Every structure is written in C-alpha cells, then in structure tokens.
C-alpha cells in the first residue's frame, strides 16, 4: 500500500518533468527528492532492464549490478555509477537490440541518481587536492628563459620528450628528472647564460637539408596540378608562386642574425619546349629575398640565394613566380613565349619530362606537332600563320613526321587521354590514360578551348627536390636587445652592479622575493670566478648558470602550510558550503601568481604580476580579476594556444603525422603548416575577442591563407596572408571542419570513423569510450571503397550488441564526417562509392553531414563546457581530476554557462575555484 502511494507521488513528480526536453543534459538540482529512493526508483528499474545481462553469472562488461544493494553503494562506486548514468541517459544502454525501458521509469531512475550524486558531492568536505612539485617542461623552459633573459634559441628542444599524463605534459607526478634530463638542464644553463651575456654561441656553419615527403612519379596521371588542385588554371593561379603546389615551405630556426645561403634544387622536370626561362624565387616570411632563372632542363640546377636573416624561427619558401607565363602560345596563358619552337624530334620521349609523343599530339591551329611547335611542321590548316589558326584535328601526318607508331591509339583515340587539364575538353577519362606511351611523363595538358585530344607537355612540370639552408656566415654576435634590457640593468664594471643584476634575476627566476640568503651564494660564485682572473662578463655568466640549475628555478614547489592559514589577502567572494578539510590551506600569493602565469603564459610571472603578489593584493577579487583579464589580453596567450590547444586538439601531433604522399598529393608541408596555423588563429581569436567557447562546435568562420582557403573551396581567398574567412557557403563548421582535426583523427592512408568518433567523444564531449577488447580482427583496408564502403565494413560493429554498446556512439559521428578525407579535403566519393554521411546516435537523433552534426553537437553545450573545463583544469593544475573535484567543476561550468560561455569566464571561474586557490597539505612522513 505504502509502495503504491510512493509510486503515485513519484508519478506526479515525474509528470512535471515530462515537459522538460529530451536533451541529455544532467540536471543540477540539489534537493533530494523525498518521494523516490534507491529502492523505489532505481533498483526496480535495474532489475527490469539491466539485471538480465549485468548479473552475477553473466556479468556483461564486467558489471554485476545485483551487488549494488543500497544507495550507499553509489558513493562507494561513484565512477561506475557515473558511467551507468551516462550510458542509460544517452540511450546506449540497454543495447539497441533489447527492449527500450519505460520512459517514465527511466527518468525517475536517472533523476534520482543525479540527485544522489549532487547530495553526496555537497556533503563531502571540499578537498582542493594537491599537486606534486613539478619541474619545468620543455615548452615552459623555453619560454621562461626567453622571458627571463631574452634568449630565444629554444634550448629545450634538445631535451628528452616530456612524459604525458591524462593527455598533457604538465602533470607533476609524471614529469620525472632523469640524469640525462639534468645533464641537459646543465648544458642548457651554460648556453643560455652565455647567449644572454655574449650573444648567440655559434660554431662552424652547418647545412640543414629538407626534402618534400615524396616525389611525383612520372606515370602518375593524377598529379597534374589542375587535377590535384582544381582551383588552378593557367590563367588563374597565385602568381607569387607561394601558394602553388610546387613551392616548398619549411619553418627553420636560425640561431643568430647572419647571412644564410638558401640552396634550392629543382627536381626532375622541365618546361615545355619553347618556353622562356623560368624564374625561381626564395622567400623569407613571405617576402622575396632573391630570384634566379633556370632554363630548359631543370634537374640538378641548384639555385643559391644569399640573404641576411635575423635570429629566430622563420618561414622559408622557394617557389616559381608567374610560372604559367612565358609558355608557348598554345597554352593560352599570359605573356606567351617569344622564343621559336624547337624542331620536332624523331624519336619518342625526346624531351626530358615532356611526353615524347608531344609531337603529333594536340590539334591546335598549327597542327600541334609540338607544343608551341608552330606552323613549320605539319602543314596544318592555316599553316604559315603560327599560332592563331583555329584548333584543328590531330594530324596524322604530323604523327608520321615525329615517328609516332602507326595506330597509336593515343593519337586518334578518345579525348582525355592522359587526363589532360581541367580547362580542356579532355576532361577526366581515366581509362584512356592507359594508352600513353613510355614517355618520361604520361601526363598531358589540354588548354581551355582546344579541340579534344589536344595534348601538350604539362606546364607544371617543375618542383623542388631539396632545400638546404646553410650558415651562419658573418654572424652578428652580440646579446639581443631583449637580453640587454633584461640582464644589463646597470653597468657591470661599477661596483655592486653584479649583485643588483643577480638579485633582480633571482627574484624573477625563483618567482618570489629573494633575501641575502638567496643572493649571497650566487655572489660567491662570482667571487670564485673573479679570483681566477676571469672578466666581469664571465663572472656574470657563471652566476646566471647557477641560477638556472637551482631547484627553485627548475621546480615549481608549493609549500605545505598550517591548515587554513590565510595569506596576506583573502578571497572574499565564494563562501564554501562546508569548511575545507583540515589539511587544506591557501596558496601563497606567489604560488598563486606562478600558477597563473604558467597556466596562461607557460612562463614565469611578469614584473607586474610579481609586484601585485609582493604587495599582497593578488587575492582581492577586483585585483585578481583585473590581472587575469590583463593576462588574457597579452600576446603571450599564444603560448596557451600552442601548448594547451596543441595537446587538447592534438594538432601538435601533426609535426610527425605523415599522410601517404601518393594518395594525398595536396598534403605538402605548406598545407601542414597552414592547417596548424588556422587552428591556432581560430583559438587565439576566440580568446582575444572573448568569444563563446561553443564556437568550437559550430563556428561558421575560420582563418585561412590562399592555399588553405582554396583547399576549402573558397575561391576568393588570395594571397599568402592569413585572414578571417566565412565558411557559410561551405559544409565546414567549427573545429570539425578544420583540416588539422580531420587529419590528426585519420590514418595516413584512409579515414577512420572510429578514430574520429573517439576523438570527438574524448576531446569535445567528455565521454571517452573504453579501450577495445583484445583480439579484435584487423580491418581489411585494401578493399574499402572497392567492394564495400567503409560503412558496410563497419556493420559488424552493429551486429554484435557488445560492440555496439560503444560503437553506436563513435561510428555515427565518424560517418557524419566521412565527406572529409584523411587530409580534410571534401569528397563526394570514397573510391567508387558515394559517401553516405548519415549518422544516428543511440538516443535516436540523426544528422546528415557535418553541418547537421555540428548542430547536434551544439546542443551538448553542457557536455562540451564540462569537457573543456576538465581539460583546462588538468593542464592548469598539473594533476588529474578526482571525485572530490566534482563540486568545483560543477560550480565552474554553471558559472561559465551563466556568462554566455565566454572564454574569459572559463578562465576566471577556474582561477577562483577551490582547487586552484588552495591545496591540501601532506602530513610530513619522516
């Protein structure tokens, strides 16, 4: 009887909730619902819908739900219950094959669970957790010595790779210090100190050599620019050469301002016979620093450019400006060649790189015996007037002259042999390509408006096979202006200056005020070096070295303090529901300042932040607020984008990701560099304009240069500079439309719906799938697209209920993105099969294609906010998150949502949160 009344009350309560939407957002109600309980709402639900598989005997997925007999089990097995709640709410469980649970009962059960979670969380003593003392990681070391001493040569790039935990390299527990690491710190300290005082330490000139990932194979029918880069035509292309596929781009770190030699070696190609000489240009940061000309056969004709380059990382490129000018008239391009056409060759393959059968192919007005061959060969219609006659048919006579074999189907066969250029009527007729002869390159070009079958030597047959950067020559060895400013705050020949310098540097390096006790030992080093007769500069060098190997510099240590001790100024704002646990204490203002600066700038606090901490005002809400906002506006936020963004969105991995060169010829180094820059600029812009973080999911804009813009189908984007572009006319939205994400979530030779789905779940929705079971058989990759689509192959995921429990979440997302190939390029087909981009989530929502997918994801605003919050917390705190952080996380996400999800509110909420402001002490164990 009582039970019925309870159920009735429950029903009433539930009816009120029915009006609430279908979304999977967790409710944030904290009052316990008296009407239902574990026994009345949850256990029966589990018994009806779950015990069938999750019982003691079967224990599906290693989960036996029958052992959870009371509500206390929830607190005891919180992680499991989190997962259970999530999977039940999203509809993953029960698996699709099983009957659906009653909606009312489902809602009652989940609501009870959520309420219980909240209740338990609210009761727990707030625990700020503790972070283990952590050493500077590579990025932090580089940026800290730059900010401290103006030294920019990135010494930590030589350090061993930092170990990562939870996806980030800032985790105190995981960052270990091996002997090798210490040796590196020591030698870095020496180089950095010497560079700061004397200038760059340069040894003999060396040569760095770069090569593109692959070389075009002569027989590749597809690799004509106009096929692989369809936005190009001989009359509409980037005349600077920078955004052309045959340019070559690298980022190179120059150790010192000096003269450098850029040596570019063209590859095995040539211009069409009769063309004018070709210009090659070298660029530094997008500006031309030198040009040369190459003529005729290109191979091996290494070109040298000598120029002065300043120290630091620069973008170096080599390309061919105006490369479709100076071509023979037949090509229909600008400024045609004034050179006479060379005489026809008697044998095939006459010109290196030119199709030997170029002779006799093509039916341009002059008979087209040779590209640009002019009238003297073939007695074509209108012969005598070289290049203006109407296009004619392929002339068998000319073929005879050039010795093409009779009956060569290439001459009279169907148009499009060799996949001539897009401008041509030749079109893309793959089958005919097999008719080509044994010439060095079987790729031909058909000019726009030329008769079908016109085949000229390809006009894009040049590229770079290697780029070498040699130097430095005549280096300017002196401390940088930045170093002078930061180090030489007085004249070291004057007494007392060295102490002044070291005191100043120590204060910044140790990130706190320094005492005589700190500085005296450094002065002792100086005295020792002085005593053996070395110069004041040398003395200073050793003093700085000592600073840079000190544990106070290398480690960020937070000291245990008396519990609940208050620092100089207290945060008044957020009263806690309960008093923090007995061992919790506030960080000192300096420790807080360090946390802030390493979080946002990957470096030490600057002068102002340190000053505020010294004054003891950092904790005042208005001061803290102002400082954080100041830091958010500082250009140093680019480091946050680079380090946090690079690991969260994983574009750091693009450094070593190499898609198959022959499958994806458009993916060259320039595209790689550009796609990383795009994502960085997107994130930097979001921070700078304090935008809504949900734009990661559905922004209809991005940043692109010409190469990337054209890659995305935006035909108006010209020029190598990056600028904001609208994506409204494209199917790309947010991060899911950016090539960086689409590439890093693919294999080198194909896409993977599972990888992409997993990427989204892990990095955007905070719902990482568990690892696959052992013994999963490999996917038969070679057959995808040939005898079955990827979708069909993935059906086996659906067939098995256990597989489906995870794959029903992952695969649909991946399918939604299948139109993007493994390098982020849009495609309509995968091999022979048209792409089907429909996906259906376990809760029934469907979408077709990336735009609809982004709309669906946008509704998961809470999940995304929580996800980003967690990741930023892990990165900023330097530890993984624990159950006791839940309450703080909830507060943060609520605060962020209340502020239109602005990025600044995310940062501020995190900074004000308990785990960021306080830490838990550890009883010292002897």
């Amino acid at each position: 009887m009582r039970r019925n009344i309870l159920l009735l009350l429950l029903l009433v309560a539930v009816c009120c909730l029915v009006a609430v939407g279908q979304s999977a957002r967790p409710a944030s109600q904290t009052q316990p619902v008296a009407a239902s309980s574990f026994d009345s709402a949850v256990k029966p639900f589990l018994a009806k819908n779950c015990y069938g598989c999750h019982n003691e005997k079967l224990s599906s997925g290693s989960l036996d739900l029958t052992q959870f007999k009371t509500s206390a089990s929830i607190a005891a097995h919180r992680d499991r219950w989190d997962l259970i709640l999530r999977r039940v709410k999203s509809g993953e469980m029960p698996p699709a094959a099983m009957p659906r649970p009653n909606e009312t009962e489902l809602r009652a059960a989940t609501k009870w669970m959520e309420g219980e979670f909240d209740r338990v969380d609210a009761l727990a003593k707030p625990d700020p957790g503790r972070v283990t003392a952590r050493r500077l990681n590579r990025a932090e070391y580089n940026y800290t010595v730059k900010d401290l001493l103006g030294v920019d040569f990135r010494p930590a790039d030589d350090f061993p790779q930092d170990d990562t935990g939870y996806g980030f390299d800032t985790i105190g527990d995981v960052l270990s210090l091996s002997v090798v690491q210490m040796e590196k710190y020591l030698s870095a300290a020496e180089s950095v100190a010497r560079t700061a005082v004397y200038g760059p330490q340069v040894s003999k000139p060396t040569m760095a050599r770069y090569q593109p990932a692959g070389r075009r194979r002569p027989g590749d029918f597809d690799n004509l620019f106009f096929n692989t880069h369809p936005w190009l035509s001989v009359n509409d292309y980037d005349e600077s050469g920078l955004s052309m596929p045959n340019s070559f781009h690298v980022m190179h770190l120059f150790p010192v301002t000096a003269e450098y030699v850029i040596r570019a070696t063209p590859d095995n190609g040539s211009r069409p016979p009769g063309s004018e000489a070709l210009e090659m240009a070298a660029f530094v940061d997008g500006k031309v620093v030198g040009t040369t000309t190459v003529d005729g056969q290109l191979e091996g004709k290494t070109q040298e450019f000598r120029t002065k380059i300043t120290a630091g990382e620069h973008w170096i490129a080599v390309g061919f400006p105006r490369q479709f000018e100076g071509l023979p008239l037949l090509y229909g391009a600008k400024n045609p060649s004034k050179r006479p056409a060379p005489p026809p060759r008697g044998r095939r393959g006459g010109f290196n790189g030119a199709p030997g059968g170029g002779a006799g192919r093509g039916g341009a007005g002059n008979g087209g015996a040779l590209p640009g061959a002019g009238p003297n060969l073939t007695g074509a219609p209108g012969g005598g007037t070289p290049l203006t006659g109407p296009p004619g048919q392929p002339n068998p006579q000319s073929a005879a002259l050039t010795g093409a074999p009779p009956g060569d189907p290439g001459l009279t066969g169907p148009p499009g042999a060799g996949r001539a250029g897009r401008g041509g009527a030749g079109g893309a007729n793959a089958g005919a390509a097999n008719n080509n002869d044994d010439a060095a390159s079987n790729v031909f070009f058909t000019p726009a408006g030329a008769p079908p079958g016109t085949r000229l030597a390809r006009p894009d047959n040049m590229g770079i096979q290697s780029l070498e950067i040699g130097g430095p020559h005549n280096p300017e060895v002196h401390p940088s202006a930045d170093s002078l400013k930061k180090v030489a705050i007085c004249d070291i020949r004057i007494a007392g200056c060295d102490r002044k310098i070291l005191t100043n540097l120590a204060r910044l390096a140790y990130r706190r005020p320094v005492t005589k006790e700190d500085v005296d030992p450094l002065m002792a080093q100086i005295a020792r070096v002085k005593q053996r007769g070395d110069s004041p500069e040398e003395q200073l060098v050793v003093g700085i070295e000592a600073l840079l190997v000190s544990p106070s510099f290398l480690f960020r240590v937070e000291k245990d303090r008396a519990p609940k001790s208050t620092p100089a100024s207290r945060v008044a704002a957020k009263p806690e529901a309960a008093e923090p646990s007995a061992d919790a204490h506030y960080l000192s203002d300096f420790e807080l300042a360090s946390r802030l600066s390493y979080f946002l700038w990957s470096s030490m606090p600057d002068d102002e932040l340190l000053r505020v901490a010294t004054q003891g005002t950092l904790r005042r809400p208005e001061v803290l607020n102002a400082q954080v906002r100041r830091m958010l506006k500082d250009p140093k936020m680019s480091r946050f984008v680079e380090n946090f963004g690079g690991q969260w969105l994983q574009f750091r991995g693009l450094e070593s990701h190499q898609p198959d060169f022959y499958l994806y010829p458009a993916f060259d180094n320039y595209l790689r560099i550009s796609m990383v820059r795009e994502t960085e600029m997107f994130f930097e812009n979001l921070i700078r304009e304090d935008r809504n973080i949900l734009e990661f999911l559905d922004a209809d804009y991005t940043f692109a240069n010409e190469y990337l813009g054209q890659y995305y189908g935006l035909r108006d984007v010209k020029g190598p500079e990056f600028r904001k572009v609208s994506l409204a006319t494209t199917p790309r939205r947010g991060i899911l439309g950016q090539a960086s994400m689409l590439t890093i979530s693919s294999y080198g030779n194909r896409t993977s719906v599972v990888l992409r789905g997993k990427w989204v779940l892990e990095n955007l929705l905070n719902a990482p799938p568990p690892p696959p079971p052992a013994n999963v058989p490999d996917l038969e990759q070679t057959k995808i697209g040939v005898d079955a689509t990827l979708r069909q192959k993935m059906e086996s995921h659906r067939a098995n209920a256990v597989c489906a429990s995870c794959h029903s979440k992952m695969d649909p997302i991946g399918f939604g993105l299948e139109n993007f190939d493994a390098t982020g390029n849009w495609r309509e087909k995968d091999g022979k099969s048209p792409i089907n981009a429909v996906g259906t989530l376990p809760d029934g929502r469907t979408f077709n294609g990336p735009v609809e997918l982004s709309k669906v994801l946008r509704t998961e605003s809470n999940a995304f906010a929580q996800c980003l919050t967690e990741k930023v917390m892990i990165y900023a705190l330097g530890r993984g998150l624990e159950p006791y952080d839940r309450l703080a996380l909830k507060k943060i996400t609520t605060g962020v949502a209340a502020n239109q999800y602005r990025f600044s509110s995310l940062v501020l909420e995190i900074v004000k949160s308990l785990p960021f402001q306080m830490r838990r002490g550890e009883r010292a164990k002897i």
Partner: protein
Amino acid sequence: MINTGKHLSRRTLLRGLGVSIALPMLDSMVPAFAAPARVNGAMPVRLGFTYVPNGMCMADWTPKTSGKDFEITPILKQFEPFKNDMFVLGNMQDHNGNALGDGGGDHARAGGSFLTGVHPKKTSGKDIQVGISVDQIAANAIGATTKVRSLELSCEDSRTVGNCDSGYSCAYSNSFSWRGPSTPNPPETNPRAVFERLFGGDDITLPPEVRAKRMADRRSILDLAQEQTQKILGTLGSTDRRKMDEYLTAVREIESKIQRAEKEGVVEVSPDFERPTGVPFAYADYAKLMLDLAALAFQTDSTRVVTIVLGREGSLRTYPEIGVPDGHHPLSHHGNRPESLAKLSIINQFHAGLYAQFLAKLKATPDGDGTLLDHCLLMYGSGLSDSNRHLHENLPIALFGRGDGNIKPGRFIPYEKPTPMTNLYMTMLTTAGVKAETIGDSTGKVEHLAEV
C-alpha cells in the same frame, strides 16, 4: 667555408621532411681511448639489451630443430655469421605483460615489464609504478667504473599528443629502462645528444684550460644546487620530496662524472672533428648511426651497459624503403593472413640485419685476448611474440656473446617450461659480476647455457 656536417633543428617538422647527414668517421676516435682494465684477470663483461617492437612473424623466427645445428630461419639468417656466438632461446615469457585483470594495454605493459619483470600499475598519470630494470641494476653495480653509467638509445621518438595505450601513462611506453619503481629512465633519440653524452659537447674542441675551468664551474654550481635543495627538503611533503630526490640523485651523479673526468684528464680531439649533428631521415641510416654509437661506447669503454630500442612498442613506423608501406603496428595484427605475415617478416629481417652490422663491428674489435663480442652478453628480442594476439609467451629472444667465457653459445635451447625473461637477466647479471637476489618475477637463472 661550409662544413659538410648537417644540422637539424628539432622544432622543425621531422617526419615529413628529409634530412640527411654525413655519417662521421667514428672509428677514428677509438685509438684515442685506453683499453679497459681487466676485472679479476678477465676482460669486463658488457651487457646489452636490444628491443624490437610488435612481436615477430614467429614462423620465420623459431627454428624447427634445436641444439647445435638449429635451423637457420629467414629472420635468423641475418645472424648467420654469428651462429656460433649466439643462443636462440625458446619458451621465454614476460608474464607480467599480460593483463592480469587490468584490461587492455598490452603494448604499454610490454614496454614497462620487459626489462623489469614487474606488472606496471595501470594509471594514466599519477603514481606510475613498475620496478627497477635489469640494465639499471647492472649500472648500479658496475656503472661507477665507466664515464657513463649506462646508455639508453632509441630509434623512435615518443608520441607527442594524446593518451598512450589504453589508460596507461605514456611513461610506460616511452622508457624500457627504469631506475626505480617510479623513475623512468627515458632513452636518447638524437645521435648528437648521445655523442655529446659520451664524449662531451661543444667543449670537446675547446682548449684544455678552458675545459677545465668549465668543469670546475659545473661542479661548483651543482654543489650549490645540492645545498639549496637540502634547505627546501624540510618544507616538503613526502611526494614532493621524492621528486627532489630524483633531482639530487641526478645532480650527484653528474658531479661524480665530472670528478672522474677531471681525474682522468680530457681527451684531445682536433677542432675539425665531425660529429653527428642530427637525426638522419632514412630509418636505416638512423638505426645504423645509433648502433654505431653503441658500438663506439663499448669500444671506448665509455659504458658497459647499453639499452637499444629499435622501435617503440606499438610502433606505427612504415618501411616503404623495403617495400612495406603499412604501419608496423596495424601490420602486426596480421590475422594470420599470409601477405601480412610476409611483410611483417620483412620488417623483422630488416631489423635483424641492422643489428647484425652492430655485431660485426663488435666481432671485429680486438678486446683482450679475443674480440669485443666475446666479452659481451647481448640480448635481442621482443616482449611480444605473436602480436596479433598480444602474446607475451614464447618470445623471440636471442643472446649474443660469450660473457665471461663460461658459456657455450651456438645453440637453440627451447626450454621445457615457460621461463621468465628475468631468469635470463639473472644469468646475465651474474655473468657480469653483478650481485642480485632477484629481479621482478625471476625464479632463478636460465639453464644449459654453460653446458654443451
């Protein structure tokens, strides 16, 4: 005047670009170093541990006949010139690489357990825990006599993003060598850094007086660093103190290295000497350079313990240069398809061939009354056998060298019962004069090595 040595800036995009370097004439250095002192009248034993990832095509490894005339299978063919200097051991296992209830993560576990014999604690961040590895046990005992305690090299860089295997911290897959249960000893991947570690950095071409001053400076500032650390230690909790201990240990070790170098005097090298300046683009060149450096380290007695990783466990490297464009890891999930197995075997033979060049160098180096190879004990193998099923049993293991002269190689010994790898390590340690009770899951030593 442009030096033909090539230089690579690490920040630049390594994989997609080609970098070639001139292989330096390392051999020219050897005469500059004195021969190692004998230990109890015999030449010191050098220990090596070399790892290849993702198991092997076992059918092409395991000989069908045992004993002295064991079958030379396709992979072992690469080692044929050393047939009489080697053992092939069968039925070796790494039991702690198995899940043992922890679910997925065989590659991380293989990495963490292979040289330690301990089941790695499953954690993606905090409190990583495994055990001390065999090479470090050896280094603790015999490392003090050489300039470098031990050398760890790898021909594959670690992952830069994302999580590693299934909930295991990347620390487990990055390091095979562990100084202690929570202290990974990551390998060096840059040949230049290895060279500098062995023979000195830019200093090497400075005049001796300047070098002496620099060494004195280093010692002095490291002294100061230790004092500073001692002051801080008292204010720290125990977890933090452990981190500081790592720092102190490292500092002390470098100091003793410097002291030794000051005593022994510095080696004079001409200013034009070429040294490796970066990572070669082609894998074969890279591996060969690292192996050459390992050989040089032995030849100059700069160290007696070397760990070489030819590929990280779980390696995705492709080998298009030998006709295998597939990623190694996906390929190792061969599903028993003949084409996949054949390609996997090609990779295995490739690795073996590279290692054979290393062995040849050691065999060609005189050492005491014999060759350097005679006085080595070098283990070569993988922590997985059939990687398709992630098996940690019946591992492909070979042992090269004669150690202290008491073992009689030239045989394939398939043990009757599954034998822990750590038993082999016990034997290796004892042979090298290192006293150890146990290591990881060892139950004793391996048998039959000393009998015919």
